[in-house]
């Protein structure tokens, strides 16, 4: 007990240098935990982007390219799927639902997606969560738009606002469809997926803004789902759900061998996994960096402890003179480094939560990573345990020196 008291009082007496060491450890713990949390949550946000969809079908291209363009709105496909093929395939036995999507237009840099009402009914993200409305409802007319939560927040749009859609992607589009303004009728709840950054319009509207000739004035007021679909020639891709997983493989094979048109069907869960594996190197580099930070901070602690130890030879000799054994001085120094380490980890955890709390909103809006501010996971606790253990082992170096100092210095306090 006396050793704990001495360690505590001695640390308090050297609070400036101890505080610096403690902060170094705290910052490294914070960085390690933050990188780990962002990594796990990015992975989870990534795989949560789409769920419950058995197949995504598009023009024949690469698996990942189709996934990126249809789900993440990254890049675009060179070709589309003809409406006839879509209708033929979706009429096959076992098809429970299908969602046609048409991409390629934008509004102030945000993707515009043409689809049907089935999108709001069947699209699932995260753990099979359906889309929900924050305000308003789904479009019921050709010139209505449902916007994602990020679009509403970023562009400060409200229900009833009128917007103009540009042709092509990006912020600077030269061709605005000024003659076809859209009225915001619904704002979706945040999903942490690209849906938040998307404007959803009826499939027929895509045709309309590109000057499709099959639309007449009456369609504006025709609320039937047929009017919302219009007469598209081509769509970018479509999502499918089946009655049974058995159909998935069978229909996937049929689509990939479909003779009328070169099509590609992918299973999103499989392709998502493949894509994440490609990104694994970044994940590893991030982890490596954070471990390097931890090692540097532990070496910093070692340097401070060793530098202090030389100044503390007199203190150790005094303790020897009042009866402390060399092993007790060894324990004293070990307890000090353990305490510093423990407090460093504790402060590090606090800083980690403070950082996550303040940046969660930013990460959600800028990177689409939904940060889960929850208790430390088993893995994160293990990481802290490893840091504590490493700190303790490093603390044994000055402790061993203290042991030998105390033997050689003995009670010669005139050091």
């Amino acid at each position: 007990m006396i050793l704990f008291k001495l360690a505590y009082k001695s640390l308090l007496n050297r609070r400036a240098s101890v505080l610096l060491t403690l902060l170094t450890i705290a910052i490294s713990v914070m960085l390690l935990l933050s990188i780990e949390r962002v990594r796990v949550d990015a992975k989870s946000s990534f795989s949560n982007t789409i769920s419950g969809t058995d197949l995504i079908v598009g023009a024949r291209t690469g698996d990942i390219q189709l996934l990126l363009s249809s789900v993440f709105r990254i890049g675009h496909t060179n070709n589309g799927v003809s409406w006839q093929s879509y209708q033929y395939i979706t009429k096959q036995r076992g098809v429970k639902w299908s969602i046609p999507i048409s991409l390629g237009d934008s509004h102030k840099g945000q993707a515009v997606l043409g689809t049907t009402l089935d999108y709001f009914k069947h699209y699932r993200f995260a753990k099979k969560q359906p889309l929900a409305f924050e305000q308003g409802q789904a479009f019921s007319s050709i010139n209505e738009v449902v916007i994602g939560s990020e679009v509403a927040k970023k562009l400060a749009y409200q229900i009833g606002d009128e917007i103009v859609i540009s042709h092509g992607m990006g912020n600077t589009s030269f061709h605005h469809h000024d003659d076809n303004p859209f009225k915001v009728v619904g704002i979706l709840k945040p999903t942490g997926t690209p849906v938040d950054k998307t404007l959803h319009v009826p499939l027929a509207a895509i045709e309309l803004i590109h000057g499709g000739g099959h639309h007449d004035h009456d369609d504006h007021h025709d609320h039937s789902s047929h009017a919302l679909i219009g007469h598209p020639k081509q769509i970018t891709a479509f999502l499918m759900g089946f009655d049974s997983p058995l159909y998935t493989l069978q229909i996937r094979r049929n689509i990939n061998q479909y003779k009328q048109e070169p099509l590609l069907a992918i299973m999103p869960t499989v392709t998502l996994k493949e894509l994440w594996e490609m990104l694994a190197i970044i994940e590893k580099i991030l982890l490596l960096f954070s471990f390097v930070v931890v090692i540097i901070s532990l070496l910093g602690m070692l340097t401070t402890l060793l530098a202090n130890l030389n100044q503390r030879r007199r203190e150790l000799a005094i303790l020897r003179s009042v009866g402390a054994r060399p092993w007790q001085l060894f324990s004293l120094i070990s307890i000090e480094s353990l305490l510093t380490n423990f407090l460093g980890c504790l402060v590090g955890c606090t800083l980690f939560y403070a950082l996550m709390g303040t940046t969660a909103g930013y990460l959600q809006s800028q990177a689409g990573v939904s940060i889960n501010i929850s208790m430390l996971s088993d893995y994160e606790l293990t990481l802290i345990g490893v840091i504590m253990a490493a700190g303790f082992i490093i603390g044994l170096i000055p402790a061993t020196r203290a042991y030998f100092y105390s033997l050689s210095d003995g009670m010669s306090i005139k050091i």
Partner: protein
Amino acid sequence: MINLENVSFKWHKKAASPTLTIEQLAIDEGEHVFLHGPSGSGKSTLLALLAGINVTTSGQLCVLNQNLSALTNAQRDAFRADHIGYIFQNFNLLPYLTPLENVCLGCQFSKKRQQHVLNQTDSLTKEAARLLNALGLEPHFHNQNVATLSIGQQQRVAAARAFIGSPELIIADEPTSALDTQNRESFIKLLFEQAKKINSTLVFVSHDETLKPLFSRTIDLVNLQGDV
């Protein structure tokens, strides 16, 4: 209490001549001995041998009838903690402890001394306060930072630390060198009082020969070695 016979000590085994050679020295229980000699006469070496920091190269050195050379390092550490109180020239108080805590530290590493205190009073702190009062440090200084105390006050704390737990042997290594003549004498009288109270043997080392008359016995280290 202390018995040295044909003791010699060399810092290095291959050294030509020993640093310290004492043919015979006996100090009885309860004696207050003044040990003096010029710098380099081997005072600190003798104290290190008495405290069991170093062991004799040859001969026999017994403290409390225990031959210190026959003990292991750990046993000598335990022996020192249990039986010897040490007062240093430079006080050597821990700056981050209060006077009371510094005094208690004197028996924190010895169960025997702790038990001795607890047989007489309720707590170590009570005994530490009693000793500080007895040595002339007023209660309002007891919980102050030791660094704010005067030299004389710090020396009293150092003495109380040596006395706590009533060790059989008190070694004082030039404890009055920083005090003026008046304070020196009154401090030595307080030391005597305390040593008498617990029947401790006091070995007081100094090169200041003006202190000689205060002690019942004086040992000149130069003469002691010259006898050899």
